[in-house]
Structures are given as C-alpha cells and as structure tokens.
C-alpha cells in the first residue's frame, strides 16, 4: 500500500479489476471474429474447370487444387473403367495452370495422344486418356470466374489489430501497476510489441497486398498476452522474448515465401531432413544438461533449443503433395526419420517433446496412409517403448506415480508444482488478482511449464480458457480447410502443425493441473522461451500457407 490515500488505492484496484473483466470479453470477440472470418475466407467448393467424358459427354466437376483420378472409389475423380488403374493420375492446379502427372498406372496416361512422362501441362480443350476413358479439360463457364471470397467480406484487418492494441493497453496498465506503485518499465515491451504488430500489418497488407490478417491477429493476441503477463513480474526477460517474437515474425514471412513454390519445397525435403538430424546430433554433442534434459545449446550469450526448430523440419519432411503421395505409398522413409528424431529426444531425456513428435507423427502418418493398421502397429511399438522407459527411468515413473495424487505430495517434487498451480489458479477466480500480483511467479518454472497457472491466477480462468480455446480453434480451422487449400502438402502440414500446437497445449495445461503427468513443455506463444516463440511462429506459417488467399493476393498485384 504505497499510495497513502486508501480511497484512491481502492478506486485503482476496482478500475484494474474492471479492466480484467473487460479483457476476456474483447478477447473473445476478436478470436471469434478471426475464426469466423477464416472460415468464411475458405475457398468455395465450386469447380473452376470441368472434365467432359468424350464418349458419354458426361461432365465431371474438378473440385480441388489437387485431384486424384482412378478407378478407386476414394479418388476425387472416379473412372468407371476396368482398364484404368486404381490410382491412375493426379490433376493439379499450379501457378502456371493445370498439370497432369501419371502416378504409376499400368497403361499410362496420354495427353492429346502423347504418353506423358512426369508432370505435363494441360490446356483447356486438351484430351487426357486413361485406360479406355478420354476426358477433355474445359473451363466451367456456368460459374463466374470472380473470386468469391472478396465479395464475402473478410473481417477488417485494421479493425482486428486495433482491438488487439486495445486489449494490450488494458494489460499494460495492469503491468504498470503490478507493484501498486506506477512503474513505466512495462511500457517498453508494450511499445516494441506495437511496432512489431503494426510493422507486420503494413508489410503484409500494404506491402504484399494480402487481404487476410486473422491468423497473425490471433498469434499477436496470444504473444502479447504472454509478454505483458511476464512484464508484470520481470520486464528484462521480456526483451529476449520480444527479440524472439521479431525473429519468429521474420521466420513466418520467410517460410510463407519459401512454401509458395511446392516443387522447390519437395526438392528441399531431403536436405531439410538431413539438416534436422545433424542439428540433433549437434545438440547431443554440445548440449549441457538443464533441469534434467539435455536440450539446450549455448550460442554466445543465447541458449537455443534445437528441438523446437526441428518441429518445423519434421512437418516439412512429413507432408507431401498428392502426386508424390500416390507414387510413394509407403511411409518407410518418414518412419525412419521419426524414429531418429524420437531416439534423439529420448537421449536428451526430453520426453514431453518426444510425445509431441509422436502425436504429430501419428497425424501425418494417418493423413498420408489412412491405414489404421499401420497406426495401431506403431502405437503398440510406442507403448512398449513407454513401458521400457518407465521400467528403466525411475524418475519418469515417479512423475507418473504422483499423477492424480498430487495432494499427497504437497511438499515433495511429485506434486509441489501442480498443487501450487491448482491452489493459485483457484485463488485467481474468473478474472484474476492482477498482473504481477500473483504468488505462483515465485515457484520454479512458473513462466514456462506452469504459465497456465500464472495466467489463471493473474488474469483469471476466463482468459486462460480463451487462450487455449484459441489454439484449439486454429486446429479446427486447419482441419476444415483441408480440402480447400492449394495442395495436400498445405493440408497435411497445416493439420500437423495445428495438431502439434494443440497437443503441446494439452501437455502443458493438463500437466500443470494434474489432469496428465507433468512433462515440462511450453504453452505455445505464452510461455517464456525464445526458441519456442520463434518455432511456433514458424509452425503458424504452415497454417497461413494452407489459406488459399495467402498466395492469391501476390498474383493479383
């Protein structure tokens, strides 16, 4: 109570409380508007071109950017033709136009009478022959060629980002009064945050002419909340976090640029895989043990967690375009790569991250193969592995033993952190006790592994739930966009990236609150940790790339 007049102090407390009540409501509106606008902005499933059967004159709409053609019922364009292969060819839309490629059919694919080898561009009017079927590519003239999504207006990026700034003003006021006395220090991270947010806004909307900014808005909302939360406790540690945010934004932009050319991406996949494995090797050789896990490399005055960046590489290696999926059906290469990654993580004793890789692996493997049998086999191998770990790594077993019984371990390592999280989270109620006014901040790992508890305590359960729901919404968006992106590569990578983020969120939130054993992974965008912050922005690039509008604007200009 440094203010001598109790009346003013009380008034201030009430104003700050009112701010904390307003924040989750505005937050909800922004997130919902972003999500609705993302959903609205998806490509309509109207055919751009159609195929006309030269014999029956039946027309087949071409609905997707990548279409498998074949006898199999699961193909996008089903050929009722016993002489065609089950998966005969893939018809793809690219920047240059429509391309057909044969996917190892028995009888081959012919365009205007010539048997094709490799990708072959088809023009409207060209006839493609597969087996005894001949299809002519035609423009779909019944639908107007105008891009529909411009007519169905997206949420104004300016309005969204202004609301984010608005929320951050409320939060920074909280942070400034963290110690009851006004301190201007949190204004520094607030200022930098605004520069980064509006910088990316102008670069992307004015510079690149993109129309959508929903994903970036959601990411800034989360990153900003995390940074301002930490500003209430320790302003200095937000500086590296802000640096990482800047780095993350650059990575995000570079990756979107890189992802625009899928042929280039597919060429680079092997190099990325080798690079990832080398990074792991470097990690194992150079790392120092930090809190039981050897997952840090020291570069000058910075500590880097390579496994965070390998998450991005993992998705690069796992996802694939449809034509390559059809020709390389087995998963052997990817399984091998995943095994190496997870083996390295076990050697680093980073079991939380290993779990994240494993779940991401399952998502990618299933989306590629659709084979439940393979997945079941892999899962049983993993279960056996987990059993061995529990058997030979007693400290992991200890954590599992305390799980669900944390109240019996209030003062030992089994439940010390979780009981503090639960107790202080409950103390915060729906709207929290105020930034910097919590007590969980004094518990070890409060700004990383236990940050969910800190959000609950200082900003309230309402905002904490909204934060994790935002991450869940990203996944539901990525899923609903799976058939509408420009390639299965984007679909698979967006689903994998968003699934990875949500699973990581689950491990963090449920670990801290004793729903699951505590594993010590970060809460995406909220937890303190530069590598994590950058890597999450990198992962968001996959989701951004799956949005059809991302590359449309570039072509328009």
């Amino acid at each position, binding site marked *: 109570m440094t203010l001598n007049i109790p009346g003013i*102090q*009380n008034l201030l*407390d*009430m104003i700050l*409380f009112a701010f904390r009540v307003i924040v989750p409501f505005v937050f909800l509106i922004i997130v919902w508007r972003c999500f609705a606008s993302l959903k609205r902005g998806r490509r309509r499933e109207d055919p751009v071109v159609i195929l006309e059967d030269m014999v029956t004159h039946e027309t087949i709409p071409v609905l*997707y*950017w*990548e*279409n*498998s053609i074949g006898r199999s019922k*699961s193909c*996008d364009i089903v050929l009722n033709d016993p002489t065609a292969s089950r998966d005969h060819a893939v018809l793809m839309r690219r920047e240059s136009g429509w391309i057909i490629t044969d996917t190892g059919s028995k009888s081959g694919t012919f365009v205007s009478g010539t048997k094709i080898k490799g990708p072959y561009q088809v023009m409207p009017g060209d006839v493609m022959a597969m087996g005894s079927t001949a299809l002519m590519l035609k423009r779909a003239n019944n639908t107007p060629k105008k891009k529909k999504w411009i007519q169905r207006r997206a949420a104004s990026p300016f309005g969204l980002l202004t609301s984010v700034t608005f929320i951050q003003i409320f939060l920074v006021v909280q942070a400034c009064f963290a110690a009851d006395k006004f301190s201007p220090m949190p204004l520094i991270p607030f200022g930098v945050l605004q520069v980064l947010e509006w910088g990316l806004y102008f670069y992307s909307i004015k510079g690149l002419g993109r129309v959508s900014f929903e994903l970036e808005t959601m990411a800034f909302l989360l990153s900003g909340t995390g940074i301002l939360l930490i500003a209430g406790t320790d302003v200095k540690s937000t500086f590296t976090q802000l640096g990482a945010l800047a780095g993350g934004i650059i990575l995000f932009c570079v990756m979107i640029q890189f992802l625009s050319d899928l042929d280039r991406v597919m060429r680079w996949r092997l190099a990325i895989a080798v690079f990832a494995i080398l990074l792991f090797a470097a990690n194992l050789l150079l790392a120092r043990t930090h809190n039981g896990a050897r997952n840090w490399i020291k570069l000058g005055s910075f500590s880097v967690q390579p496994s965070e960046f390998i998450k991005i590489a993992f998705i690069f290696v796992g996802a694939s375009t*449809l034509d390559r999926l059809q020709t390389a059906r087995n998963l052997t290469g990817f399984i091998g790569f995943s095994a190496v990654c997870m083996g390295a993580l076990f050697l680093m004793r980073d079991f939380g991250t290993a779990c994240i890789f494993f*779940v991401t692996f*399952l*998502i990618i493997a*299933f*989306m590629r193969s*659709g084979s439940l049998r393979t997945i079941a086999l892999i899962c049983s191998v993993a279960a056996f592995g987990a059993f061995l770990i529990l058997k030979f790594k007693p400290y992991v077993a200890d954590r599992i033993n305390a799980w669900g019984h944390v109240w019996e371990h*209030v003062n030992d390592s089994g439940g010390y952190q979780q*009981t503090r999280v*639960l*107790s*202080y*989270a*409950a*103390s*915060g*109620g*729906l*709207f*929290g*006790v*105020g930034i910097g006014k919590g*007590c969980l901040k004094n518990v070890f790992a409060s700004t990383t592994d236990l940050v969910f508890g800190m959000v609950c305590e200082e900003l*309230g*359960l309402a905002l904490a*739930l909204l934060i*994790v729901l935002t991450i*869940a919404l990203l*996944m*539901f968006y*990525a*899923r609903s966009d*799976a*058939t509408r992106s420009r390639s*299965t590569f984007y*679909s*698979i990578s967006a*689903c994998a990236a*968003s*699934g990875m983020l*949500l699973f990581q*969120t*689950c491990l963090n*939130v*449920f670990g801290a*609150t004793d*729903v*699951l054993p505590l594993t010590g992974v970060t809460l995406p965008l909220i937890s303190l940790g530069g590598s994590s912050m950058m890597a999450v922005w990198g992962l968001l690039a996959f989701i951004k790339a799956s949005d059809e509008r991302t590359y449309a604007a570039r072509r328009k200009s």
Partner: protein
Amino acid sequence: MKTTGTRSLILWILGLCFFVGLGYFVYGMVTNGGTWAMQPFNKHLTSGSQLSNGGKILDRNNAILAKSENGKRVYNSDETVRRAMLHAVGDTKGYISTGIQYNYRSELSGYNLITGLATPTGKSGGSDIKLTLDSSLSKLALEKLGSRSGAAAVYNYKTGEMLCMVSSPNFDPQNPPQDLDTDKSGKYSGVYLNRVLSSSYTPGSIFKLVTSAAAIENIPNLDSRTWDCKGSILINGNKITDVSSYGKLSFKNALAKSSNVAFAQIAVELGNDKMNAIANEMGFNKSFDLDGIPTSKSVYNVTGAQPNELGWSGVGQYTDLTNPYHMLLIMGAIANEGTPVKPYMISSITSPFGLTTKSGHTQEGSRLLKASTANKLKEYMRYNVSSYYGDKMFPGLSVCAKTGTAEVGQGKKPNGWMVGFSSDRNTPLAFAVVVENANTGMTSAGQIASALMTAAAKIK
C-alpha cells in the same frame, strides 16, 4: 484431396481429448476450487494463519466467537467461552477438522468462483457465519464439566437448532499452550477431537432404550410380564450382576431401576437377529452429519455372539459403542414419534454485501423408530424421571430420560451418561451428556444435564 479431407477428421480425436481434459479441469475447479485455494501454503491467505482476513463467527445472540483483526484471528473475550466453543468454532491452524473454521473456510475467507481470493473492492470478501449455538449455555456446560473429559449437547428437537455442543479436554484458541503438541502426559489426549461428533463411548445402561425398543416390538405381553431379579444371573456360565437384588420387576420398573439381570434375559430372549435389526434401524453402524460435518459411527453387532455376550450387549456393554450426537438424534426421534428433526448449527452465512448465501432450516431426518415404539419408549422414559430420578432435577420440564454407567475396564472409572428430552411442548429440548471417568451416570452427567436443561429452557 477428398481422402485427405476425410482423414483429417482424426484431429477430432485430439480435439475431443482436449475438451474432455479441459472439462475435467474446469469441473475440478468448480467443485473443489475452494479446497484448492484453501491451502496453508497459499500466500494470498498470508502469514501462517489461514483466516487472517476471514469473516466473523457469531453465536445465536450475536456474541462474537471469532473474527479477524489486522491480519490476526481474534476470539471471544471470555476464556471459558473460547474454550467451550473451541470445537464448534475450530482453531486457527485448522487442526480441529470438524470445526466451522475448517469446514467453512472457503466461505469465511470469501473464496468464490468469480473473484477467487481477489479483493476488487479492497475489503475482505469473507462471509460472516452465525451459529444457532448459545455461548453462555456452552460456557455453563464447560463450567459444570470442570476438568473432567466428556461431551454435552443440547438441541431443539422441533426446530433442529443446536444450542450447546461442548467437548472436553480443550484449550484456549487465543493462546494455545506451548506444550499442546509436545505433551506426553496425556492431558491433551484427543484435544482436537470434538467428542460430541467424533467419539464413540461404551453406552452402558442408556443402551437399554434400544433393547426396550426391540422388546416393545417383539414381546406381545410386555407390560404384563415380570422378571425375577435376584442380583445376578448365570447365562452360559457367565455371571451378569445388578447393583442390588430387586426381586420381581415389571418391564417399566426393570427399565427404571436399570436391571441388568432383566435386560440381559430380554436380549437373550429376543436373539441376535432381532437385536441387530433394531440397532441398525435406530442408526447404529452408520454415520450421520451435522451441517455436512460427518460424525463417528455408533457400533452394535452381535452376529455370532454367545448368549452371555448377547446378554451383556443388551445392557450396553460387550462391543457396544455410541456416539453422543447419535444418542441426541435418537432422543429427537423418540420425542418426535420416531422421526427426528435433523440438528443444525449454522443459522446463516452472510456475504459482505449482506446477501445470505446459506441459512439453516428445520429438516426431517430419516425415521429411526416406529411411531408406536417411540411413544411407548417416551412413556417409560417419563416414568424413569417421575418415579425414580425425580422431577426436581428438571423443574416443570416433564423430562423423559435414561441414565447409564458404562464400565470401561482398564482400571478406569466408568463413563457416566444421561440422555433425554423435555416432553413439554413449550420446551422441546433434547440432550445427551457423557462424562468420562465418573462414578455413576446420575451423579456426573445427571448434574450437568439438570443445569443445562434448566438454563436452556429459558433461551428464546
């Protein structure tokens, strides 16, 4: 890409797991948030004491039993009141787990789901709790108990209000003795235990009420029968004795004189099954609760007992155990034609904004006796007082009662019991008193009961 779209549905599994986990956490927060927050390590509750910012606890006349001042818990100004109310109110550290301060710590500290422990208005959000207990009646009970261990409880069997709940030994919560936790002499033995709610004593003769209930229901010509009481009887080679030889006794005189010889024979005549059945019906081997605070079970089980053991069990020895609160409830049942009114001690919980969040009210408990059995027992118990104990003990209250002197062995003196109620409709009060290490029920518990009932009858 259609198949990719279909396969992406696998993400729903992850989404489902996420929502299940989140739902589990939120459910835990909603149901247990108060307990989670009320931890000794929680610094929002500050320095050592859990209730440095808690609400007040008041007795029925608004006397302050406990309140928080300048970050400290302060109790009533009278030491005897503090000690008498200790077990009802609870201690500062929360060691008395049946106390209000422990069981209602969320309410007192002002925890709620919306604001947690935050104090947006700058004031403590703790609720005040008003009890139905009367601190001066409790003080009287403690004065009468003196240094003896025991328990005394009085409640209004029509409204359910608890008026007195005192347990001894106790200590002063304002100045807890230094040697409270280190003492080895046994003077604080069971000091954190509320003997009204959490103890089980050998009942002795008060158990004859249970045997009587079984007799009323199972022996058709009960009032015309007599029992020959020659001071002792051999059952199965084991001698059961009385204080003196009473000669031929009718049933009601056998109860009034509390003849072990007669009641042992009755229990044997009824048999194990009927005795077990009536005891279970009357709530033995079962836990009750007072405002959600659970009580210890009374115990009666004669399955497989020999006839001599059955005989002893019928007079309240053998393995029989009773809990004072349970006995009080049985008194309420007999007074109310078999169905007791549930006792309560929280009159109201009032939030800082003046909103009453909980108020105690009259509520029927589950039936413990048939109405006819209860009325018959009431008649016999009234006879006990009018012809033997003397109405002088309870002037003008038409008390129905039963005393008991329970042998506990191990070189200790018996436990003295008295349980009963006023059958006068203007003073619907029931009581249960037990004194450890006493001479007889009448001289120990009887004196306390007499004083308590006389004083309680004046409470409005």
